[in-house]
Every structure is written in C-alpha cells, then in structure tokens.
C-alpha cells in the first residue's frame, strides 16, 4: 500500500487533490481511498487530506501517520506544523515553491534524503498561468505523478476531465502537463548530478 498525505490551507483544493489522485489511481484499475482530516473548514486554516493506493481492497480507516509521500501545497506551513511527521526515510516530498529547498531553510533536511525523491514545483504560478487562479492542487498531483511514477499523466488528465469541464478543464490539463514536464526535467538533472 502506498500512502500520500497532502498538507495545505483551506481554499487550496487539498481535499480535491486527494480525491483526484484516488480517481486517477482508480482509472488505472487500482484500489484507492481518499479522505480529508475533517478539521474546521475555514479558508486559510491548515488542512490535511489523505490518499491510499493499493492493488487490493483498502480496509484501513486510520489517518495516514507514516506517509510514503508528502505533498506540501503551502510552504508557510513549514513554520506552523510538523508536516514531515512520520514521513518514511525513503519517502517522497513535493513542495509548492518557486524557491529551492535550500533557500527556504530545508537544506539540512534534504541533505539526509535521497534527492531523487525530493522536488519543488512552482505550482501556484502554474495555476495562475493556466487557470487564472492561484490554486496549486492540480499541478502538484501531476508533479507527484512525475516524481513517483505511481500514476500516469493520462490518468491525472482523466481525473481532471471527470472533475472539471470546458475552459477550466483545459486550463488544468495544460497546468498538469507543464507541471509533469517540469518535474521530469528536474528528475533528469538529479540523475545526472
């Protein structure tokens, strides 16, 4: 079983992101379970949501305390809560920022980890560019697909088309496609480094 935890703030589409991830995994014939942390749902408040992916039925209902992957939708959360709590030693981290891990003060953290599993992505900018709104969730799940190879970009696009239609769907697909390419590019650089 592969377990993903997404941290963000109310209004950033955190819950929708896990739901779409689960739909993308389902499109590939896998079992998936997405659920929110059910906190006070206020704009700007820290929000956590979870997604499990497996090849067999998922029965477990506990929150994800030891994730295989973390997606952090808002870097300002790093100062507020321990987003890395329980992350497996070889876990993936995808962080929404146009800076590097080092320049936002995570240099020591990334030193101890496998660089091929860490990535930053300017997801808010991608949302603004393609959808006209600073919502980073869709670029991040596409970026996660590229980082982890857990799901295909095509499945993310299917999930987008299930959730949105018309111009919004088109914009999100463009954002997802660029995010996927950006992360793949970064991964290539890491593997050459």
């Amino acid at each position, binding site marked *: 079983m592969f377990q993903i935890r997404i941290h963000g703030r109310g209004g950033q589409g955190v819950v929708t992101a896990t739901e779409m991830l689960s739909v993308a995994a*389902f499109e590939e014939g896998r079992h*998936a*379970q*997405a659920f*929110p942390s059910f*906190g006070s749902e206020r704009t700007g408040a820290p929000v956590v949501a979870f997604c499990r992916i497996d090849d067999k039925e998922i*029965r477990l209902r*506990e929150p994800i305390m030891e994730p295989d992957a973390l997606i952090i939708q808002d870097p300002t959360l790093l100062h507020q809560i321990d987003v890395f709590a329980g992350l497996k030693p070889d876990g993936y981290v995808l962080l929404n920022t146009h800076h590097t891990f080092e320049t936002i003060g995570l240099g020591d953290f990334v030193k101890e980890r496998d660089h091929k599993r860490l990535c930053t992505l300017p997801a808010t900018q991608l949302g603004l560019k393609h959808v006209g709104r600073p919502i980073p969730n869709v670029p991040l799940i596409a970026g996660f697909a590229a980082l982890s190879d857990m799901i295909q970009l095509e499945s993310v696009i299917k999930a987008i088309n299930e959730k949105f239609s018309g111009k919004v769907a088109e914009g999100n697909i463009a954002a997802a496609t660029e995010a996927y390419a950006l992360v793949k590019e970064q991964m290539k650089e890491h593997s050459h480094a």
Partner: protein
Amino acid sequence: MLKQTEGSKAVAEAIALCRPEVICAYPISPQTHIVEALGEMVKAGELTPCEFINVESEFAAMSVAIGSSAAGARSYTATASQGLLFMVEAVYNAAGLGLPIVMTVANRAIGAPINIWNDHSDSLSQRDSGWMQLFAETNQEAVDLHIQAFRLAEELSMPIMVCMDGFILTHAFERVDIPSQEQVDAYLPPFEPRQVLDPAEPISIGAMVGPEAFMEVKYLAHAKQMQALERIPQLADEFKQIFGRDSGGLIRTYHIEDAETVVIAMGSVLGTIKDVVDEMRAEGHKIGVLGIISFRPFPLELVRAALIKSRRFIVLEKSLAVGMGGIVATNVRMAVSGTGLKGFTAIAGLGGRAIPKSSLHKLFRQAEKEELEPVTFVDLDWDAVNKQLEREKQTRRSGPIAENILHDKGIVSAKFG
C-alpha cells in the same frame, strides 16, 4: 457501474435509484452532501416524480416525512447528531405509527462539548425508538443497505435508519459499484402502503390509545422487529442473486472458526480491525472478528452462536453509556448470558478520535491475556483527566471542563487524530 466516488454521492445515487417520492432535508454535517446531491438531481429533473422539501428544522424534516409516508409516498430523509436529537419526538412517532421511512444517519458525536466528528452516540441514543438500525462497514455496503432498507421497511411497515460513519465514510472517496435502475427495480417493488391518508377514503392515523390497548400496539412493534430478524438474511440472499455480492445480513464474521478471542464492532472500524487481525493471525494469534450489521433488531441468537466456541470477546464501540460502560457491549453480554464467556468493553474513537492499528494491536493482545479492566477507554489521556480531577479537588470555582482540557493540551482549535 464501478466508480470512484464520495460516499455521500454514492448514497444519493442509490436513494435516487430507489425512486423516492418525497425527500425532506435539513442540512447538518456530515450528512449534508447526501441531500445536496439529491436536491440537485430533483432540480435537474433527473429524479421524477419526487418532491424535495427544504424544511426549517430536523423536527420538521421528520414530521414532513411522517405526513408524506402516511399519504403513501416513499419518503426519505437524512440527519446526524444534534439534528437527530432535535427530531426525537417525531422519530418515536414514525415508529409508533408504523411508517416505513428510510433515514440515513451519518453518525456523529453528540454535544456538549460540541463536536462534528464521528462516533455512534447519535443513532444509539435512539436504540429503543422502534426504528431498525443497520450499520455499514464500507460505502459499498452503505449503498446496498439503503436499497435493502426500503424493501424491508415497506414490507414490515416500520422505519429504518441506515447508519454510516460520518466523514470516515460519508466524505471518503472509494470504489463503489452503483447498481443499474433495472437491478433496483427488480429488487424493490413499488410502495404498497398498509395505511394511506386518502381524501376519497378517509381514515385517521394516530389514535389516542389508553391502557387497554397501548401494550399491544407496542408489542406489535417488537414483533415486527422479530420478523425482521428472519427477513434481513433472506433479503440479503435475494440481494446477492440480483446484485451479485454479499451485502447486509444481521452479522458478518471473519476468521472466527478457530478464534479464541473475538473482536466485536460496528461500522467502518471493522476494516481497520480486520487488518490488525490479519497481522496478528500471521503471528499465530487465534483471533477473529464479529461485525454487527443489524443493531436493531439485535441478533441475540446469532451473536451467541458466533461467540460460543471462543474463550473471550472484546466489544470495541464508538459509544459510551455514561455511568454504565458500553452500549453495544451490554447487548452482546445479554446474548452470551449464562455461557461463562469472558467479555471486555473498549470505548474508542469518541468524537472522532482516530483508532489506529497500533492501539488495536496493544488492546487485542491485552484482551487475549485477559489483562483488561471490564471497561477500557482506548487512548484516553489520563494526564489530562487527572489534572482536571485534581483542579476540581483544589478549587471550588474550577471552571468549564472542556475549556480547561483544551487549555491544558495547548490546543487553540480542534484538530483531527
């Protein structure tokens, strides 16, 4: 059709397939998404003939459902927590009048302290209301139980609550097979009421009944639930023939054949329990699971038969009978009275506290060794409790308990887990 969808959305689709004619709705978390989705379907003309009635309170929701059901319309509503409590007088009336209303309860804690998260306190508070109560383990089962519920309710002319864990199921996206309209139509015939308010043939429903007949009317409600004990397994069998899957029934067992220790629970936590049991079995522990699907009627004989070969049982329940212990556990103990089986009660997950596998591993191992107190409070923070008790000993004006505990824990706003 197999789809990846939200529990609430799946239930709304199942309700629509059951061709309800009146849906009364008053929003309350975590039930809201269900009636929202149904409201959209009615407005879009996808669900006809059906009247969607926005009411001013839960009391009105149940009162309208009583009226529409008495007029011969298949009637549905949904609620949770304080909403269920607010409609209680009408809840008892619906059962007392023998009206086959189906209601989803998206199980949620009862205040005070106010809490929107899941436990089973709300529907269990209505255990003696005369409503049947079926508990879903997964969103698939929630879908299936609603279809079975309309059939059972209308056959017996008695109301049913289909209980699903608030948030944990209602807000979870998972794989659900939504049946076809043909399948549901083949299983669920049109509503043929036993009593109808019809201006062409006037009758009254809801007579005042004195001591000369009250007990008989009440006994008949009990008799109906005893009939349901027979019908629920039969309806699950018929369901399997049409829909091709096991869903519903009175109880469900898991690795119980050679189990020395049996864990008993209701609802979605059964999934987590089964994972823990698999892990313990792999280490050689003889442990099994008994899931109770039908809490009302309570299947005393089946529960007894399922436990009789074991040595001990532990009831893990998301409810607390204050001043007593467990609610489900009390029912289970009634089922095994005279057997000499050792029983333990574990209260867990109140107000949405997570029930992690790690806690269950510890708890079940203690149960195996019979090292537990009769009633255990799983993952209770004894430091916080003792600090408050000490405060009350030291000071008369010790202040509000909830605020004190939050302050001691350094919590400024509620969080999950």
